């Protein structure tokens, strides 16, 4: 099966190369197409909707011109299924002649599109998926979201600093969850802490009760949680049922659990929960205040979350790269232009690591608090310019 697919891709790539060389293409089309593949329906639809709204907002604010060309965004729905992502990526590259593909709501979806990016030499901007290894899957992948190790390490360090010795971890059993678990466990152990148990719940699990009960019975100092965007509310409801505070167990996690989009519906049970993450809608900066106001005005009832900001910054990166190449859409040149790019995003200062093509950003420690009757993740500590620890450790070994 592999051989067949590879041949088809080679053909696709050849066809592309042929059009690029043919005299007709020399007309230098004035339109640059950006193919965005997102889960707009299905279980991860909230990710798709947040990112699509952010992309729309970006184009409304900054216009549709970059590098002297008109940027046309085509959004396709992969429903969160990797096979469809791959097919759509191929269609976008071959039929629509997209110069850049982007989006990718979940890790398996990003990995499915990676070979297409490599063979067609088209940059793939990952706006959502968070497993560390994604950028290694293709030299054409650039990431504007975050990595799980990047977001997890700070809360682990915070836990160590705050006298937490014994921990239990509970994560969703798939790429990012395992990334989060490994990072958290490693940091705790390095600092002399003790990991009593590492629990993994199936990704599609309607019942967290047994895992939470197990965690409670082990009586750790803290319980670390990770679930993907969209599942936080269900998890936190069951957490509040167990009354961890009474046993003196702190509940901490990555910001995925207290996702801005759902936070307000979680109720007072999450008040005081400490998490670490790259973005909070409450982030105190003029850029973010403007962003949140514009986003909420364009999308009544929807609060921008970390997914949205990944999409917004992804567009910013594509625009800046096009400006830098003066409208040249050659994939290799675009990726080169993206490397090392730095700017101020609503989430704070960010840049693209020239070595790994992954994002370098601040990670904030936050506490859930009530502000004007609404729940927010209020940042109280900043860990500046965090590189993905997973790849940093790898580089250090070399």
């Amino acid at each position, binding site marked *: 099966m592999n051989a067949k697919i590879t041949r088809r891709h080679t053909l696709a790539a050849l066809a592309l190369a042929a059009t690029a060389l043919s005299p007709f293409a020399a007309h230098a089309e004035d339109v640059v197409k950006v193919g965005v593949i997102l889960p707009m329906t299905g*279980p991860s639809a*909230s990710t798709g909707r947040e990112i699509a709204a952010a992309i729309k907002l970006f184009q409304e604010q900054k216009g549709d011109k970059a590098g002297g060309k008109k940027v046309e965004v085509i959004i396709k729905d992969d429903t969160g299924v990797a096979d469809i992502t791959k097919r759509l990526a191929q269609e976008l590259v071959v039929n629509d002649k997209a110069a850049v593909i982007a989006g990718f709501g979940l890790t398996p979806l990003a990995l499915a599109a990676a070979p297409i990016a490599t063979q067609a030499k088209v940059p793939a901007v990952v706006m959502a998926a968070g497993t560390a290894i994604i950028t290694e899957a293709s030299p054409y992948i650039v990431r504007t979201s975050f990595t799980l190790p990047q977001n997890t390490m700070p809360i682990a360090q915070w836990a160590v600093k705050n006298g937490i010795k014994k921990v239990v971890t509970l994560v969703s059993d798939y790429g990012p969850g395992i990334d989060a678990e490994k990072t958290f466990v490693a940091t705790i152990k390095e600092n002399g802490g003790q990991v009593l148990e590492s629990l993994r719940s199936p990704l599609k699990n309607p019942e967290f009760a047994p*895992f939470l009960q*197990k965690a409670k019975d082990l009586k750790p100092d803290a319980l670390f949680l990770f679930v993907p965007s969209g599942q936080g509310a*269900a998890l936190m409801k069951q957490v509040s049922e167990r009354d961890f505070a009474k046993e003196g167990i702190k509940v901490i996690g990555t910001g995925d659990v207290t996702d801005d989009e759902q936070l307000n*519906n979680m109720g007072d049970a999450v008040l005081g929960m400490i998490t670490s993450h790259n973005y909070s809608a409450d982030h105190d900066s003029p850029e973010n205040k403007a962003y949140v106001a514009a986003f909420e005005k364009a999308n009544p009832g929807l609060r921008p979350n970390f997914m949205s900001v990944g999409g917004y910054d992804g567009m910013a990166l594509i625009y800046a790269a096009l400006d830098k190449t003066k409208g040249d859409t050659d994939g290799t040149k675009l990726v080169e232009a993206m490397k090392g790019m730095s700017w101020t995003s609503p989430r704070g200062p960010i840049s693209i690591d020239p070595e790994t093509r992954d994002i370098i950003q601040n990670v904030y420690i936050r506490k859930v608090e009530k502000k004007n009757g609404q729940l927010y993740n209020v940042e109280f500590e900043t860990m500046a310019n965090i590189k993905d620890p997973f790849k940093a450790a790898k580089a250090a070994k070399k």
Partner: protein
Amino acid sequence: MLTVLFDGLAYGMLLFVLAVGLSVTLGLMNFINLAHGAFAMAGGYIAVVMMQRFGLSLFWGLPVAFLVTAAAGAFLERTLYVRLYDKPHLEQVMFTIGLVFMSVAGVDYFMGASPQIVNVPDALDGNIDIGDVSLNKYRLFVIAFCAILTIALQLGLSKTRFGSRLRAAVDDARVARGLGINVTTIFALTFAFGSGLAGLGGALGSAIFSLDPQFPLKFMIYFLVVIAVGGTTTITGPFFASILLGVADVAGKYYTPNIGGHKIQIGGFVIYTIMVLVLIFRPQGLFGRAQGK
């Protein structure tokens, strides 16, 4: 340990209320209704809308969820299902799975894809401590509610006139008709009642597990396992099967054995193992009678 049993019991009871309607339509009316989960989802969303839009408590949500889904069940039975009673099972499966996909897409469109949050009424919020065991009030309520419901169902089927008419209609519809029993009405009422129970289960369960448009697909497997293990000819069969599965599922997830340094997550497949074993040794289900006809 006791808490695990308690959580498993609550989970099993919920499964029972959700699945019993399916057991009735499948076992008594010989109709495969895979869209059963869609009625459960409808009940859950009705409760959500009642609480979020109209600010009513879950106590009101439960009866309304029951009545509205029962009415919807009756309507669909009269307009759509009735045409498929004498069709082969494959056609029934195709038809009802189509309904499931329509319900998933419809709810996604109108209510959004993100999971809905149902807040438990204040009276049922929190835990009761009995010795070392801390029991969640809402789960306690679910257990008590479902236990009463089960007894009522069992009595209703075995002791009332409607129950005996239904059993007669199922055993031999032609003879029952000849005796002046209105079989069509009885089937419609039974179907509506089963749908209503699913809706009630969905509303009850919405406060425990997350309710999203994928609900009918996620739970279809569980329903079918309950029916396969419990058999379809009695009420008690699916009841004990649900309890068994609920406890086994929760306990399987709680106790993760450590084999050779690797954590083996048995939780996910305990219930399937039980199902396979039951199907091998008692294909009619643990509590089912051997097929009569």
